[in-house]
């Protein structure tokens, strides 16, 4: 690794603290400006109602709620930095514990969905680009437009209606069966069967973006000089497209991963809520419905961290993959 790349990565990492500060301020401000009673948010409505008023006042003093806003922010920030993200009232456990417990399920769903989406999107986009202007290209672009304009939850509802209710092929909710099999192989089968519907629905909702991206970037690459050179060399059209145009259009694809990450997490909220998938998307939905404010703030912070991390990794991967990048 040469030194300019190392400097680029270092500079990129140094931008992060400022961003983290911004996100903590944003999260705190939403909470501070909202009409939510902070004592209720910290302790839970039922606890506050049961407590004698003088105890409530004592707790408020303890939490620093009688302090001016900047002090409150710093007190809150100190707790966050020390890993005390508050207490979730619907789960009756610390917020960070709940988030960490739920995260693997989301990871499984999003990675599966993302892979299906990327494979299908790239394949279809490539077909469209190779046959640009043909009937199949027009058809694929048309379908793509419709999918892009369809809300994910509608796809989920229709998929559930067709595959779970009418055909009865796939389970409509949860990650494992109620009477979960205990043997290794049937357990894996059970997992996979539960994964299919949510993963495909999630994949479909991002298919349009992949498809459009690959189609236009391959078409754009076809205009480049090195394509003319490859053709002049006498390569057949297949090799020109696959080895030259397609390979070069895959490169900027890496940075797209960073852009997809927030979309995928957002998409998982819908899919997880409908299919009762026990990940952080469903957790956000439950927290919103039952007004678990500490959990909600924790989720904003946690998902923002994920996005920042994803963007950082994507930028570094791109810099490593493309020697032409000027680390400016």
């Amino acid at each position, binding site marked *: 690794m040469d030194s300019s790349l190392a400097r680029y990565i270092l500079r990129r990492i140094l931008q992060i603290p*400022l*961003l983290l500060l*911004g*996100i903590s*301020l*944003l999260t705190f401000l*939403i*909470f501070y400006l*909202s*009409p*939510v009673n902070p004592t209720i948010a910290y302790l839970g409505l039922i606890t506050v109602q049961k407590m004698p008023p003088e105890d409530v006042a004592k707790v408020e003093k303890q939490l620093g709620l009688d302090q001016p806003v900047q002090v409150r922010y710093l007190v809150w920030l100190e707790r966050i930095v020390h890993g005390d993200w508050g207490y979730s009232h619907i789960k009756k456990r610390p917020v960070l514990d709940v988030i960490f417990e739920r995260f693997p399920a989301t990871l499984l769903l999003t990675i599966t969905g993302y892979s299906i989406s990327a494979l299908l999107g790239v394949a279809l986009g490539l077909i469209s680009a190779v046959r640009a202007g043909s009937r199949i290209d027009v058809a694929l672009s048309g379908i793509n*437009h*419709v999918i*892009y*304009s*369809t*809300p*994910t*939850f*509608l796809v989920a*509802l*229709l998929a*559930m*209606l067709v595959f779970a*209710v*009418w055909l009865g092929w796939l389970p*409509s909710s949860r990650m494992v069966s109620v009477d979960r099999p205990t043997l290794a192989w049937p357990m894996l089968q059970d997992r996979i069967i539960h994964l299919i519907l949510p993963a495909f629905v999630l994949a479909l909702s991002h298919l349009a973006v992949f498809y459009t991206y690959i189609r236009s970037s391959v078409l754009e690459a076809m205009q480049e000089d090195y394509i003319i050179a490859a053709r002049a060399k006498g390569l057949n059209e297949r090799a020109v497209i696959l080895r030259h145009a397609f390979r070069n259009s895959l490169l900027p694809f890496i940075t797209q991963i960073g852009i997809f*990450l*927030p*979309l995928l*997490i*957002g*998409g998982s*909220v*819908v899919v997880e*809520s*409908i299919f009762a998938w026990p990940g952080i998307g469903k957790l*956000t*939905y439950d*927290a*919103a*419905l039952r*007004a678990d*404010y500490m959990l*909600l*703030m924790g*989720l*904003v912070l946690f*998902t*923002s961290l994920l*996005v*920042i991390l994803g963007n950082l990794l994507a930028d570094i991967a791109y810099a490593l993959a493309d020697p032409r990048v000027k680390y400016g």
Partner: protein
Amino acid sequence: MDNEKMRYASPGLVLIIALLLLAVLAPYLTFYDPVRASLGEPMHPPSFDHPFGTDHLGRDLFSRVLYGTRVSLLVGMSAALLAVGLGAVVGLFSGYYGGRIDSILMRLVDTVYSPPETILLMVLVTMFTRNVWTIILAIGLTHWMSTARLVRSEALSIRQRPFVESAVALGANDSYILLAHIAPNLLYIAVISVTLMTAHAILTESFLSFLGLGIPPHLPSWGNMLNEAQRDIMRGIWWTTLFPGVMIVTTVLSINLLGEDLKKRLSPNREGRHEL
């Protein structure tokens, strides 16, 4: 695209005008109250009397879907105007003044971009009161960043063009240059952005309402109808999902088509240099 094709109206525009007419004329086109329940005929499949069937409270789905057009278009367009307006102001200031203002505003953009939009929105609508106007506000406040970045980069390039430099040389002040020279040249971005953003905002509203976190349930919005249709699905009842769903897709699709069309017609460089 050749000029021959440009003379025809966009199919998206035709559909949108039809939808606007449906929204305005809803009271004259329907025979049933969209809100009042009629216990006599719940869960009626589509028939001559009720072309879209009825829901679990016996309400006529045709009326509800038609009145839902009003809510969706109102929320979609207002939120899009707010988002693009805010984004344009931030982008103009950032691009024109540069320097410290620019770096502060762009860090703000980065910050608001970090949390996934869906999660930020759900937090906003949970922590603040929920009605049509706060939903519009919440969608607007979480969707201005892309316009801000776009307007900023265009404002940066226009600022260096000769006609702006000559205006500066003639002694024009900042606000004059911004309003008379830079803003008009960026109007096309605003028009395209508002159109595409309307489609996105309609999807967002329907998503929030579907989760029960959007438009208050007594108002007939497509998202609310689909929220109620969720439990019908398991009983194999399809019409409560299908019709509001088809309306969302048709509306969003036609607005997107119009947006694509506007992009082709209005962008100064038709080769698509202006990626929107």
